[in-house]
C-alpha cells in the first residue's frame, strides 16, 4: 500500500539534527539516493511544525537530543497537525523509554545512528509503504 502522491516520483525528506557533520552527511547521501529527495534541513525543532507546513515533506528524520524545543513535543504537534507527514527518529540514544515516548507521540520509525545509510533509506521507503520501522538495535532495546 503506497501513499506516494500521484505524479511525484520521489519521497520528500526533511532532516533535523543539531550536529552539522551528521546533517551534512545525510544531506550529501540523500541528494544522491534515487527515489529520495532532500527538501530541507533544520538544526533544531523550534520551527519544525511551520517548516513541515511550508515544505510538506513525506518523511522527517528527527534527532532527539537537540538544544531548543523538545523534539518529542514538536513531534506530537506534528502528528496532530500534519498526520500525512511521517516521522522517523534517528538518534544516538537507544532506550526503551525514549522509543516508547516516540511511538506514543506518533513516530513511524526509530533508527539508531549506528545504522548505515542503506538502512536509513530502506526505512524511509518502508514507512512510506505504511510500515512502522524499528531497527534491530531498537527492537533489542525494547526487550520483548
Amino acid at each position, binding site marked *: *500500500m503506497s501513499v506516494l502522491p500521484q505524479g511525484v516520483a520521489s519521497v520528500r525528506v526533511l532532516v533535523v539534527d543539531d*550536529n552539522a*557533520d*551528521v546533517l*551534512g*552527511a*545525510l544531506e*550529501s*547521501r540523500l541528494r*544522491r539516493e534515487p527515489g529520495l529527495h532532500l527538501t530541507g534541513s533544520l538544526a533544531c525543532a523550534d520551527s519544525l511544525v511551520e517548516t513541515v507546513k511550508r515544505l510538506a515533506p513525506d518523511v522527517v528524520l528527527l534527532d532527539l*537530543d537537540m538544544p531548543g524545543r523538545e523534539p518529542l513535543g514538536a513531534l506530537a504537534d506534528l502528528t496532530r497537525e500534519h498526520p500525512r507527514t511521517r516521522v522517523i527518529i534517528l*538518534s*544516538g*540514544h*537507544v*532506550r*526503551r523509554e525514549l*522509543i*516508547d515516548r516516540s*511511538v*506514543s507521540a*506518533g513516530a*513511524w520509525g526509530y533508527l*539508531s*545512528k*549506528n545504522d*548505515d*545509510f*542503506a538502512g536509513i533509506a530502506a526505512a524511509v521507503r518502508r514507512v512510506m509503504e*505504511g*510500515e*512502522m*520501522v*524499528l531497527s534491530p*538495535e531498537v*527492537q*533489542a*532495546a*525494547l*526487550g*520483548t
Partner: protein
Amino acid sequence: MAKLRMTVTPATGIPSFVAWGGRAPEPCAALSQLAAVVNSCEEAVIAVDLEGRITAWNAAAERVFGYSAEETLGRPAAMLGAPGRMDDGATLIERVRRGERVERFETLRMDKEGRPVRVAITAWPVVERAGVVAGACMIVRDLTPWYEWERTRRLLAAVVETSEDAIITKDVDGLVMTWNAAAERMFGYTAEEMLGRSINILIPEERRAEEVEIMTRLRAGERVRHFETVRRTKDGRLLDISLTISPLRGPDGEFFGASKIARDITERKRTERLLAEHREHLNELVERRTAELRASEHRLRLSERMASLGTLAAGLGHDMGNLLLPVRMRLEAIADLAPQELRADLQAIEQTIKYLGQLTSGLRLLAHDPGGAEAMGESTAPAEWWSEVAALMRSAVPRHVALTSRMGTGVPPVRMSKAALTQAVFNLVQNAGDALRQRSEGRVEAWAEVAGDADASGAGMVRIGVTDDGPGMTEEVRNRCMEPFFSTKPRGISTGLGLSLVQGVVQRAGGNVEIRSAPGEGTTVILIVPAAAPAPAGEGGNGRRCARALVSVADSRTRSYVKQVLSALEFECASDGAGGPPGASADGPMLWVTDESATPASVAAFLEGDPRRRVVVYGQAPGDLDATRVVTVAAPLQPTVMRDQLVRAARAVLNR
C-alpha cells in the same frame, strides 16, 4: 523430837523457826539460818493461814508482786487475785487444807501496779501438832520470762517452718541439727532422715572443698552472704542455690555450729540464661540488620555510581554515534567511486568504523538499567550477544592482554537481559584485565557452556565465565572479594563496581556467582544463570518452539508495531488488513490481534477452538466479550500498554 514452828517478825516479815516442845518457843539458830535461805531464795515463797491471810512473804515475792512484806503480812491473799481468777486462791487453800500437795498450779495474779502476773504455784500444807493443817506454804514461780521466751521461740519456729527458703543448722562437725519444711521440699530429705546426718550428703563431690572453706570463715566470725553454688537433691538433681551462712555462738561466745539459709535459684539461673540467650539473639539481630543496612547503603552507592557511569556511557554512545554517522556515510559514498587500488584502505577504515560502532552499542548496553528488562522475561543468546559486545570487552583489557571467547554453539539463551549480562561480564573482564596490567603478557577468556540438570521449570542452567592467567587470589581475598567495599586495587584504579554488584545483578536474574582462584593459578569467575525456558507451543522455523498469531488491524502503523513485538515474543505472525475471523483449525493461530472490525461472534468462534487462545482488540470493543480471554487496548497506540497486553496474552498462550 522437838516440833518446829515458823514465826515471822511482823516488822521485817523475816520468818524464823523456833523449836517447840510444849515449852515456850525458843529461837533456833539453825532454823533461823534456814529462814534466811528462804528469804534469799530466787523464787517467791509465800505462806498463808487457813483464813487465807498472808503469814510469810520473802524478798523474791516482793520483786514479783511489788508489795513489801509490811504491805502484805496479815492481809488476805485475795489482794493478789486477778479478775476472772479470784477463786483460784480459795480453791488452792481448800485443796491444801485437805492435806494435798499441789504441783504447778498455773493461774493469774495481779501485782501492785495492777498488771497481771502469770505464775505457777506449788503449795503444800503447813501441819501443826497432831496433824492439824494450820496453813499453806507456797512457792510462786513467775512465768512471765518463760512465756516471753516461749513466745519468741514459737515465733522463730513459725518463721523457720513457713520460710520459702531452706533453713538448716549444723554443728561444728557438719551434722544437721535442724531441718525445716522448705529444706524437705527443696532437697527431698525429711527432717528425720537428715537430723544428725552430715550435711555433705547434699554437696557434690567436686564442691566438698567449699564446705571446709566456709567453716573456716565462720569460725573466724565471718558471715557468708549470697554464695551461689550447686547442691544435690535426694533424687540426684542438681540445684542452683544461693547460700547465706551465719555462725552460731553460745551465750559464752563459743562457736557451736552454723545456720544456713538456702534459696533455690534454679529458676532465676534459667531466666538469666534465657535472658543471656535473648540478649545474644538480639545482638545477632542487630548485627545482621546493621550488615543489611550497610549492604543496602552500599547497593545505593553502587547504583549511584552505576547511574553516573550510565550517564557517561550514554553520553559517549551518543557522541560516538554522531561522530561515526557522517564518517560512515561519507565513506560509503566514496567507496562506490573509489579506484580499485584504494579499496583495501577503505575496507580497513570500514572495519575500524564497524568496531567503533560495536563499541558504541556496547557502551549503550552499559548505560541501560540492568534490572529493567528482566520483568519482561528478556533472554540473551550468549554467542550472538558476545559478537555485539566483543569490542566493548576488548576496550576493558590492556593492549598486551589477549581476549578470546569460547561461546559454545549449543548453549541456549539465558534468562537475563542483554544489559545485565553485559554489565556483569564487563566487570569480570575489567577485573581480569586489571589483574594482568602489571604483566608483560596475559590471557583472558570469556566462555559459556551448559551446566547441570534442568531446573524445576524444565530449563537448565548456563555457566558464563571469565578466566584469566593472572596472579590469582589468596584464600582470604577469595573469601572476601564479594563483600561490599572490598578491593585489592589501589584507590583510583578501582572503579568500585566490584564483584558484589555482579553478584547482585546475577542473583536478581535467579543465578549465582562462583569463584575459583588460587595464588599462581589465575582466576575464574563463573556466573551460573538459568537458561530461558523453552517455548511450549508449536515448532518454529528456527528450531525454537513458537506459536502462531494473526494480526488483523487496519491501521498499518499499529499493525506493523504489533507484528514486530510478537516476532520478538517468538510468534509466527500472519496478517491481513481486514478483520475477518481467523481459521479455527487446531493448528491455526493461538493469538488474534484485531480491531473494531471484529464481531462478538467471530471472537467467540475463535476462542472456542482452544482454551489457551487469546484475543487483543485494538480500539473500541465490539460488544460483550469474554473478559478473561479478550483484552481491549485503546487507540491511539500506546506502546507500553500494547506491549504489556501482548506479553500477557503471549504468556497465557504459551502457558508460561
